């Protein structure tokens, strides 16, 4: 479970033309919850930080592609 993902349930009408998407999601990145960085946060190793784009796990925001959604 990704705790940066929020779900909502859009209205689904009785006469919608396409098979409904009952759940939609949006991202709430960690900078929303700690908008001023506290000192002495836990750090990634340097190689890992270079790969992820941030030194601090508390500010890392993963994103998964939606490309495969709906493909069988």
């Amino acid at each position, binding site marked *: 479970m990704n705790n940066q993902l929020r779900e909502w349930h*859009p209205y689904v*009408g009785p*006469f*919608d*033309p*396409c*098979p*409904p*998407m009952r759940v939609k999601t949006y991202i709430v990145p960690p900078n929303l919850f700690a908008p001023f960085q506290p000192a002495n946060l836990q750090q990634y190793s340097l190689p890992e930080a270079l790969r992820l784009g941030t030194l601090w796990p508390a500010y890392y925001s993963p994103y998964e592609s*939606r*490309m495969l*959604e*709906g*493909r069988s």
Partner: protein
Amino acid sequence: MWIYEKKLQYPVRVSKCDPRVAKYLIEQYGGADGELSAALRYLNQRYSIPDKVVGLLNDIGTEEFAHLEMIATMIYKLTKDATVDQMEAAGLGAHYTIHDKALYYTNAEGVPWTAAFIQAKGDPIADLYEDIAAEEKARATYQWIIDQTDDVDLQDALKFLREREVIHSLRFREAVEILKAEREQKKVF
């Protein structure tokens, strides 16, 4: 001041899952002769037009917003359940890049709405002739979109909107006749 009724002017039924048509419908949403252009054009021109035709521009401009809602409903119904693949296949890949599945005021080719689409010349005849031309162009656009879908329920609402363009054009032509003030002239030969 407006009073809002939380219902559509005419029911919108979309029965075929065909997101491709959404791309074409966007022309009537944010295109040069779309409903947004029409509403803003008339509601803006009404300030500087002779009193006798202000009410006409007010009423038609207001109705155009009702049409805008109908178009938005069609586009939303056609795109809300589309996957990324389906958006791409519908020609809406670039739209997805910029807007996800949000609606946006562009024409069918993705050109964003601009005030340069509309005009206010201050000359009542010039303005009314522009309005007549806009109605005829919108009527033609509805015809071409009706040609591009075989969903009879979608066609039904589009045919209603097309007919409204015909009537609006007629009313603007009548407004020109009123301003010509020919009919009140006593003609003695």
